[in-house]
């Protein structure tokens, strides 16, 4: 008696794949320069962006899509990025405040702002656009006249995720 033995071999090929997962995160907070600042020179020893001194306050706009996720950090300048040679001390003062809001709830930002050194922080608790203006003033020496030339300074604005 013959026995037929059929052996079936099933071949399974072992294979591995790696899949890439891609994500693109776009910031929900956008910082846009709105108005360029201009220094006025009301007296020889003062440079000021105050409109009453002939200057223009720089304005920056923060657009926040999601509320309470970001804070705005704005730094008024403490040095010139460009100026003639200065051989005396420059005293810097400044202030940052909301100049325009897109929601009445943002009107409370000024009362809740945090200030230290030349830094001002605002918690952006309302979705929408907020315009912040920065007043900055530079006093040279002790009533000493600024040398003639071009002066530039930088206001820094950044949006930080909380």
């Amino acid at each position, binding site marked *: 008696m013959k026995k037929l033995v059929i052996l079936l071999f099933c071949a399974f090929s072992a294979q591995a794949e790696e899949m890439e997962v891609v994500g693109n995160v776009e910031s929900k907070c956008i910082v846009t320069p709105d108005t360029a600042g201009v220094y006025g020179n009301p007296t020889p020893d003062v440079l000021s962006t105050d409109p009453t001194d002939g200057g223009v306050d720089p304005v920056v706009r923060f657009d926040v899509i999601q509320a309470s996720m970001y804070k705005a950090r704005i730094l008024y300048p403490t040095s010139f990025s460009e100026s003639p040679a200065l051989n005396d001390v420059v005293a810097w003062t400044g202030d940052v405040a*909301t*100049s*325009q*809001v*897109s929601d*009445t709830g943002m*009107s*409370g930002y*000024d*009362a809740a702002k945090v200030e230290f050194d030349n830094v001002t922080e605002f918690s952006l608790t309302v979705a929408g656009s907020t315009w912040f203006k920065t007043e900055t003033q530079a006093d040279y020496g002790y009533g000493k006249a600024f040398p003639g030339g071009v002066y530039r300074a930088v206001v820094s604005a950044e949006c930080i995720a909380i």
Partner: protein
Amino acid sequence: MSNVLPQAAGLEVNNVVYRYTTDKVAEDAMLVHVQNENAQGPGYIFRASDDWSGLPGNTISKAIPVGGIPLDFWGDGSIEVEGFGTVLDPEVYYTYQYLPCNTPQDNPSCEGYIDPLTLIPETEVDTSSEEYIQAEIDRKANLQAQKEQEEKDARDKMAKATEEKVRESLEKMLGLSLGASLQKEQDTLLHNALVSTNYLPRNYLVAISGGEYPDAEPLKDSDLPDNAKGRRVNFAQQLLHQKIVQSQYD
């Protein structure tokens, strides 16, 4: 809104953008409504409210999409304040869109524009027909009459102007100001001046003799006898008439 939005057919408003500044005490309650009445019914077609209660004043800038509301619905706009505080420097802008060629006849450059002059059918005129000739004759006659009338009007106008000029020069010469009031002294002076320049016809100055013209004697009633001669003539006339009538049958 007719003075704000262009009255273009098919115009739709997409967004309302507004900005204003509030001046208020932070603790006060204040509600600001930016609104437009519904021109097609009661209420408002657009109304945005900002609650400033318990907040310090600031400048607010908002852009609100309204989703293409047709022009016909936009009534008068206003900013209403409830509570305490004032609104300063308000500005409201409307963004809109419309199809310039929504009605092709609005602009000759639109596709589908039809020149209205092409729609007027041209009629052929038979210049040899009697009607045409008569119409031409009438037209020329009318033109001639019109021209004559114009010339006559011009002559009348010139005559009137000359008369006015003479009158004015006389008034100036006499230092008068006649105007509406015809005072006796001024009239007398003017009359004398007109007489002295022979402006008035001489027969104006001829005196008519006056006096009394009594009625004539009236006829008294009496017995008037018949006129025998008149009767005979009358009879002769009758006979002649009968004779003539009879002659047509003889």
